[in-house]
C-alpha cells in the first residue's frame, strides 16, 4: 500500500517539476532575448537573425548609454526619488498599519473604510493637479513621491503582519513595564518587523522605479526627469510626431530612431538591473512578510 502511494507521490513530484521547468523557460526566455539583443548588432536583432544567443557581439549600445548625459541624470533622479519615496512610504505606512493592528484603537473599522474608499473613488486628475499645484509641489521631487505614497493594499498587508507576528503579550508586557506606544513601536515592534519592512520597501520601490505618469504630468524641467521618462522619449516614437514631424522633421525622426535602435536593449537592461540585483537579497523575507487580512477584526 505505502509503496503505491509513494509511487503516485513521486509521479506527482516529477510532473510538478516538469511543469515548473516549463513555466520557468517561458518566463525567462524573453529576458534572455533582451540580454542577448543588448550586445548584438542591432540590425541582426531587428531583422530577426538573433533569437537566443548574441550575434555579432558589440558593446556599442552600452557605450552609447553610458555616454548619454540624459540617461545618467534620469538614473540619478530615479535613485533619489526611489530612496526618498520609499522612506516616506515606510514612515507613513508602518505606524498607521501598526496602530490599526492594535485592538485598543477605536473606530478601526471606520478608519479602514476611510482608507479603502480612496481605492474605489477619486476626484479625478484636474482637482488632484490643482492640489499638487497649490501645495507648491509642481515640478519638484515631491510631486513624484507624495501622490500614491501609500495605498489600501499595503496597509492591509502590513496590518496583517503586525496582527500575526507581534505577540499581544509582548506589547502588553512592555506596557506594564511602563513603556509608551512610541517606545514599544520603535524598540520592540520594529526590530521584529524586518520582513515586512523589507517587503513593503521593495514593493513600493518597484512602483516608484517604473512609474512615469506622475512625472509626465507634474514635471516640466527635464533635469528632474526620472529614467522612465527619458526611456519613453528614447523608445516610444510618438504617434503625433510621426504623423506630423514638422518641416525637416524627417531628419530628426531618423536621428532619434537610429539612436533608439542602437541603445534600446542596453537601456532596458541598464534600467532594470538595479532592482533585479537587489531583490534576491530581499526574497528571503517574502514568505514571512506578505500576509493579507480582512477589515474584520
Amino acid at each position, binding site marked *: 500500500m505505502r509503496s503505491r502511494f509513494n509511487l503516485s507521490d513521486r509521479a506527482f513530484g516529477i510532473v510538478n517539476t516538469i511543469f515548473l521547468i516549463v513555466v520557468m523557460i517561458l518566463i525567462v526566455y524573453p529576458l534572455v532575448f533582451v540580454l542577448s539583443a543588448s550586445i548584438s548588432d542591432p540590425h541582426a536583432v531587428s*531583422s530577426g537573425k538573433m533569437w537566443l544567443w548574441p550575434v555579432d557581439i558589440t558593446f556599442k549600445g552600452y557605450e552609447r548609454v553610458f555616454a548619454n548625459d540624459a540617461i545618467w541624470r534620469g538614473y540619478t533622479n530615479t535613485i533619489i526619488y526611489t530612496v526618498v519615496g520609499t522612506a516616506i512610504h515606510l514612515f507613513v505606512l508602518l505606524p498607521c498599519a501598526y496602530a490599526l493592528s492594535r485592538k485598543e484603537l477605536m473606530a478601526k473599522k471606520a478608519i479602514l473604510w476611510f482608507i479603502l474608499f480612496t481605492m474605489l473613488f477619486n476626484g479625478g486628475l484636474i482637482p488632484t493637479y490643482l492640489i499638487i499645484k497649490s501645495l507648491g509641489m509642481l515640478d519638484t521631487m515631491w510631486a513624484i513621491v507624495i501622490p500614491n505614497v501609500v495605498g489600501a493594499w499595503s496597509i492591509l498587508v502590513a496590518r496583517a503582519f503586525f496582527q500575526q507576528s507581534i505577540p499581544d503579550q509582548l506589547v502588553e508586557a512592555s506596557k506594564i513595564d511602563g513603556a509608551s506606544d512610541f517606545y514599544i513601536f520603535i524598540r520592540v515592534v520594529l526590530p521584529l518587523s524586518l520582513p515586512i519592512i523589507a517587503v513593503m520597501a521593495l514593493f513600493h520601490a518597484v512602483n516608484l522605479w517604473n512609474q512615469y505618469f506622475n512625472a509626465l504630468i507634474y514635471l516640466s524641467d527635464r533635469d528632474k526627469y526620472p529614467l522612465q521618462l527619458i526611456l519613453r522619449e528614447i523608445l516610444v516614437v*510618438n504617434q503625433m510626431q510621426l504623423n*506630423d514631424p*514638422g518641416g*525637416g522633421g524627417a531628419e*530628426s525622426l*531618423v*536621428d532619434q530612431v537610429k539612436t533608439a*535602435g542602437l541603445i*534600446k536593449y542596453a537601456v532596458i537592461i541598464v534600467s532594470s538591473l538595479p532592482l533585479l540585483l537587489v531583490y534576491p537579497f530581499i526574497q528571503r523575507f517574502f514568505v514571512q512578510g506578505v500576509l493579507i487580512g480582512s477589515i474584520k477584526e
Partner: protein
Amino acid sequence: MRYKSTFYLLFTVLILFLTACGGKEDAEVGGSKEALENLNETGMPIVEEPIELEIFSGKAATTADDWNDVLLLNEYKEMTNVNITWNQVPADGLEEKRNLALASDDLPDAFYSAQLPVSDVQKYGAQGTFIPLNDLIDQYAPNIKKVLDENPEIKKAITFPDGNIYSIPTVYSPDFPSLLIGAKGWVNGEWLKELGMDNPETTEEFYEYLKAVKETDLNGNGENDEIPLSSVAEMSRIIHWISGAFGVQNKGSLHTLVDGDPGTGDIRFYPIDDQYKEMLKYLNKLYEEELIEQNIYSLEVDQHLANAADNKYGAVQFYNPIELYGEEVGSQFIPGNALEGPDGTKMYSGITSPVRSLGNFVITNVNENPEATLRWIDYFWSDEGSKMFFMGVEGVTYEETTDGPKLKEEITNHPDGLTLTQALAEYIINPGGNHPVVVTDDYFTGSENAPTDKEAVEILDPYLVDEIWPEFTYTAEENDQITILETDLDKYVSEMQAAFITGEEDFSEWDKYVETIEKMGLDEYMEIQQNAYDRYQEN
C-alpha cells in the same frame, strides 16, 4: 456618532481649502503703461530695460535640451533684451501638459510651438485666456502684417468668426510645394529597370509593378522577402499618394473627413462616397495580395529602416530615401508619379495648406508685455530674421556665397560624424518641430530641399489639387458641438477604413457602415462644416 466627527473635520478642511483658492481677479488685456514706456516700437532692442517672459514650448526630440544654451536664442536675447524662461515640453506628453496648464489656469506668458488645435484656440480665445492679436499685429508686427496682407488666404485661415486672430501660425511658404507635400511616393528605379517596366502612371500599372515585385527576387538574396509597398504611421501616407487617383481628399490632406464634391462643388463627406469606396477596394486588393507591408498598422520606424537597409522595398511613401535609408539603398529610389485612377482622374492630393498649423504661438492674458512678446516673434518673419532662425549666425554656422547663404562645411560634414540635425542643435532650434514662422526654401535645411525631392515636386506639380483648404474656424457654439461629433466620426471612420482595407470587414457591410455614420449625427456635422465653409468662402 464617531463617523460624524471625521466628516465634520473633513468638511472644515475642505471649506478652508476652497475659500483659500477662490477669488481670482480678471487680468487686463494689453500691456501696462510702464510696459509700453519700456517698449521700442521699432528697431532693436525691443525693450530698453530687460524683461522676463515664461514661455511654454513644444520641443522636438533632437533640439537642444536647454534652448537657452542655443546660440541663436542667446544672440537674440542680446539683441532684444527679452529674457525667456523656456518651459520645454517634449512631444511625448505635450498634449497632456498643455491641457493641464490650460485647465488649471496655470498660464505661461505665451505658448510657443505647442500645437494647439483650432478648437482650443477658439475656446480659450473666446474665454479671454488668449488675447486677440489683430490690433497688436497692425501696430507692432510689420513683418507678420506684410505676410498676411500679401497672402489673404492665410489671413482668412487664421481669423475666427468673431473677427479675431488669436494665434500666429506656422506657415509653409506657398512657393515651397516640396514642404507642403512633405513625405512623397518613391519607386525603386533599379527594380523597374530589372523588370523592364516604366515608372507606373496609373493605379493599374502601379498594381502590376507591385505584383511583379512580390513575385521576383529583385534584391537577389535567394529569398522571397521583397515587400512591394510600405510606409510608417499606418495607412495615411499611402492614402495621400493614392487618394487623388480616386478623386477623394481633393482639397488637400488637412481635412480627413470632408472635401469638395466634384459634381456640385459643394462640401461633401467623402468617407461615404462611392469614390472613396473604390479607393478602399483598391487598397484592399493590394493588402489581401500582400502587396502592402502586412504589419503596416503596427510597424515601427526602426523596423521600416531595417527592412529598407536589407533592400526589401519596391515602393515607399515617406521622406527622402537617401536621407532615410542612406546613399546605397536610398539612391535606387526615383520619385513616384501622381497616379491616374480607373475613371481617368489624375490628381495628387497629399498636400497641406500653407497654414500648416494654426495654434503655434498664442499670448495669454497674464502676459504683461504682449507688445514686446509679439515683436519678439515678428522679427523671425522678416527676411533677415528668417535667415537667422534657419541658418544661424553668419561666420559661425553659415557663409554668404554668390548662390546665397551656405551652411559651413564643419556643420554639413561634421568632424565627429554628427548628423546635420545633431550638428545644428547647438546653434539653432530647427530642424524638427513646428515653429510659428514662415518656412521658405531659401534658408530651409531639411530634406524637403534635397535635389531628389525637388525633382519629385516637378513630376507632381501639374497634378496637384487646385484648391487647398486650411482648417476651418468655428463659432463657440459650433465648436462645442463639432468637438463631440468629430470625436466619434473620426474614430469610426479611421477604424472602419483599416477594417475594410485589411479585409476584417467585408464590403457587403458598406451600407451598414454608411447608416452608422448617418446615425452618428452626420447631418448636424455637415451643417456646421457647411457654415464654416461658407464663411471661409465669403471672407
